[in-house]
């Protein structure tokens, strides 16, 4: 393939009328990265020889999980009707946990490609992002992807898209990111319909930060969209939220490798490097201006990231604590939304209470800690933030069940969410049942097209942080999709359930649950622990308690025989290999008092999956 535009426009000297800024909104797996790959190839900025799948996704985890965590902006040259344009494609994260980042990426664009899998139709998260795009007044270009699939039903879903955003089903482009069909037409359509950026070239510089990433060689790389004025290398720039001043060491565009330029002007998208080492110095949503000629008014829409879910993270080997601290410090450089503070658990020793944007964020961070820093970790069951008022009227903020105040409680407030669930209509009954058991209240229900339904529920956040999504998926054969947004606090009839091993309270297993579910919860968790904890050389009683009242008990009987019968010539090396394997297994065990508890027990004990009954103890 050869590029259509033979000569790209020079950054900082490009007229806004020749710039198009757009993003792609898509659900995980709907093929955004593959479409982006084709655009890189078609515009010629990546040669066929250098092409690799999911070119723009940098982290291993991103590529493995197929999700884009960090957004990025690529400048693509494209010619349409004899005019050369600079197209900035801004990649947006596709997961509900990263809604704020998404909204800032959208604010950097004038148009959005709404990319929908032609075999699956639109999903709840896409709907949320579409809503955000519409709120940002973006020009929406509906596109059905994967039309090469045998199961594709472009007519059906074109109808659905048209009913959502207005317009005719025929306006919906059909492409295949895999084969490249329709991609050139899509680029033409972007040039033709997305408005050019508008800004005041002579006003004080204002650039909106829509992403910042940490690079171990360059420090923090900040992605910006110029709104007004211009920025040049070597200028003193200022962050409007913190007033911090930095020298602009480098400014440039991504095409798709970083290329430094003489600056950025109105409507352009690019990156800044100041030598700062901590991403919290350049916060998503903040406005960059110059020190010499500062803007007076920051751009709208900036807010601090707010963790929704908390979990205690502990090293299995206590001596890894300093390494864990160092690893978290390093991760924070690249993830401004990660918050943590030291915490001590009687059972697990020294660790950190970490706040996350959501469950996926938690999973990604723990996986990165284990993989990139070679740590063996225990993440305690996720918890939300409760506001507890005790009898004397004092209020306690509880992010960890072990901080739950003793004594008489006057009131407990728990965070609520508004959840949107999209599903084929056949599963409505099942979903309503699930939401009911999760203490949900229906807000409304609405048909989208003939067989798809949108259900909206108000639910306690605590009920959905654990395995709501998994259950929803399994109960609807994977058809339902979920999105949620926070929705204030509400009073809940909650109690703390403690767990005791050999009579000792294990704080890591404590949880806060609804009073009516305390008994069932205690019974289930005790049964699960009996299943998860291997038999020890002594008997281990397990008890669940609310306050001083024991509500469930189980016993792990002492192991009586643990020896292989035969150990002769050829058995010896076999036995030793087995021993080596078992030694590795021991490393995944945490000593709680005298009891060895496997790592997975800390999370799975609290999941609602039923314990197996056939296993003998």
């Amino acid at each position, binding site marked *: 393939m050869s590029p259509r535009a033979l000569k790209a426009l020079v950054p900082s000297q490009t007229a806004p009328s020749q710039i198009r800024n757009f993003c792609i909104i898509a659900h995980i797996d709907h093929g955004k990265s593959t479409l982006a790959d084709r655009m890189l190839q078609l515009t010629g900025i990546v040669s066929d020889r250098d092409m690799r799948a999911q070119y723009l996704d940098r982290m291993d985890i991103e590529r493995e999980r197929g999700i884009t965590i960090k957004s990025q902006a690529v400048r693509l040259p494209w010619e349409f009707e004899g005019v050369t344009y600079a197209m900035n494609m801004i990649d947006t994260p596709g997961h509900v946990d990263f809604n704020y980042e998404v909204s800032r990426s959208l604010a950097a664009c004038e148009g959005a490609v709404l990319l929908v899998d032609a075999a699956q139709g639109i999903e709840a998260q896409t709907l949320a992002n579409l809503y955000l795009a519409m709120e940002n007044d973006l020009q929406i270009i509906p596109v059905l992807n994967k039309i090469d699939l045998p199961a594709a039903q472009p007519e059906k879903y074109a109808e659905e898209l048209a009913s959502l955003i207005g317009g005719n089903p025929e306006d919906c482009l059909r492409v295949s990111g895999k084969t490249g069909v329709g991609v050139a037409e899509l680029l033409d359509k972007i040039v033709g319909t997305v408005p050019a950026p508008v800004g005041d070239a002579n006003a004080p510089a204002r650039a909106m930060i829509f992403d910042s990433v940490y690079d171990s060689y360059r420090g923090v790389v900040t992605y910006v969209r110029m709104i007004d004025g211009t920025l040049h290398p070597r200028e003193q720039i200022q962050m409007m939220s913190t007033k911090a001043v930095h020298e602009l060491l480098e400014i440039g565009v991504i095409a798709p490798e970083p290329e430094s330029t003489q600056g950025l002007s109105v409507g352009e998208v690019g990156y800044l490097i100041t030598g700062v080492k901590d991403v919290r110095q350049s916060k998503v949503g903040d406005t960059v201006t110059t020190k010499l000629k500062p803007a007076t008014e920051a751009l709208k829409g900036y807010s601090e990231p707010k963790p929704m879910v908390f979990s205690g993270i502990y090293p299995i080997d206590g001596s890894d604590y300093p390494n864990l601290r160092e690893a978290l410090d390093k991760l924070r450089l690249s993830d401004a939304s990660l918050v943590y503070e030291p915490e001590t658990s009687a059972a697990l020793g020294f660790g950190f209470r970490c706040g996350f944007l959501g469950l996926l964020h938690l999973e990604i961070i723990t996986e990165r800690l284990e993989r990139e820093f070679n740590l063996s970790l225990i993440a305690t069951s996720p918890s939300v933030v409760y506001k507890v008022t005790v009898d004397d009227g004092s209020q306690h903020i509880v992010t960890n069940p072990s901080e739950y105040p003793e004594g008489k409680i006057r009131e407990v407030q728990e965070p609520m969410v508004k959840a949107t669930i999209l599903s084929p209509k056949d599963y409505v009954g099942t979903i309503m049942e699930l939401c009911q058991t999760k203490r949900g209240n229906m807000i409304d229900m609405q048909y989208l097209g003939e067989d798809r339904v949108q259900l909206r529920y108000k639910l306690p956040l605590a009920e959905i942080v654990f395995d709501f999504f998994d259950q929803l998926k399994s109960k609807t054969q994977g058809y339902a999709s979920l999105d949620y947004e926070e929705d204030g606090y509400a009073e809940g009839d909650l109690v703390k359930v403690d767990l005791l091993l050999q009579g000792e309270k294990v704080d890591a297993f404590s949880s806060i649950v609804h009073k009516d579910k305390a008994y069932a919860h205690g019974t289930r968790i005790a049964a699960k622990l009996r299943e998860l904890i291997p038999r020890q*050389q*002594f008997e281990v009683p397990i008890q669940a308690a609310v306050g001083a009242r024991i509500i469930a008990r189980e016993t792990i*009987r002492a*192991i*009586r*025989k*643990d*020896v*292989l*019968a*035969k*150990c*002769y*010539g*050829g058995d*010896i*090396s*076999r*036995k*030793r*290999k087995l*021993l080596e394997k*078992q*030694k590795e297994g*021991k*490393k995944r065990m945490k000593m709680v008092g005298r009891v060895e508890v496997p790592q997975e027990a800390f999370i799975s004990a609290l999941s609602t999956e039923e314990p197996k009954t056939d296993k*003998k103890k």
Partner: protein
Amino acid sequence: MPLGLSWPGDNQLKLTPNLSATFHAYVHIPFCAVRCGYCDFNTYTSKELRGVSQAEFHIPLIQEVNLSKKLLAQWEIPARKLTTIFFGGGTPSMFEASQISQILDSLSEYFGFTDGIEITLEANPEGLDHLKLEELKAAGVNRISLGVQSFDQKVLDVLDRIHSKDKVIAAVKQARELGLRVSVDLIYGAPGETLESWKRTLEQAIELGVEHVSAYSLIIEEGTAIARKIARGELAEVDEDLNADKYLLTEELLGKAGLKNYEVSNWGNPSLHNQAYWQSQDWWGYGPGAHGHISGARFWNQKHPATYTAALEKGSPAAGFEYLDERTQLEERLLLMLRTSQGVPRSLFRELGVPTELVANAIASGLLELAANDQIKATLSGRLLVDGLVLDFLSKSQA
């Protein structure tokens, strides 16, 4: 086969001879009339032999004896006489006595025998009659290890064993009359076996008046017929708690009968050959899949009789080997010797860096005890948990 290095083409191992080690031979006879449902040993029925002749198989074994003599000299291991020889299988009693005789002759010719050499042959009761026993004795065998497994017909059926109780009694009687030492192998824990059934088996074994009993709890090995039957629910799962009771009963009854436990699964007048394994002496393993250990190196042969024979023709039947470093040798010593009534020297824990409080805890909870000559050994309850104990010690040792 364990992982290891592949066998060097020039047959050269670099060894530091262990001058105090005694020298032993294990000879693997990889033939069985039928394959028992629980067995995952390296053995073959006539249908599985791929053209290997059982009647001629002593020839490659003798060829390997010849090779071993040459290689030991090449590795500069000083020549020693053999202290024990063990014919295992498979079913060595399926060999003609003349085949056994020829192998023993070659071993004697190449290495010589110490006075009082122990020569054991594993046998199934159905393959032994008076004549065979006489011939074996004449060939030099002086100890018979009889695969009895159980006296409960239901248990024998579950284990696919084909002999009858009468056959066992007759074989033991004849062997003892010929002055052979006799050991019986028993298996407990077969699906469906009750504590009562096991008690009767033990009592009848004691009545035989043998000098040695090995009692093994049945291990369900992956890929065996019995494992599939359990997976399908046709047989009950093995109950390790019940097995613990059976073990305690074994200790009680055999102890009363004057057979003293000297290793987890062995009671009576000790087998010198087995002790050689636990003491990491030097031994050569002859035959398909056999393992040898010479002065800190372990090596093993090709598994199938056909590949074994082919490899032997090309120079060596060995498939792989490993050098045991000092740490590994120490770990193996703990692993093996803690299973025995002798126990381990107290100093071994220090050499391995096992935290003293772990050992103290095990003594306090009655799993280990201090013994004479600064030894530490497992108690009866400790013996039942010795794998877990060793794992605990080694995974927490500060090496």
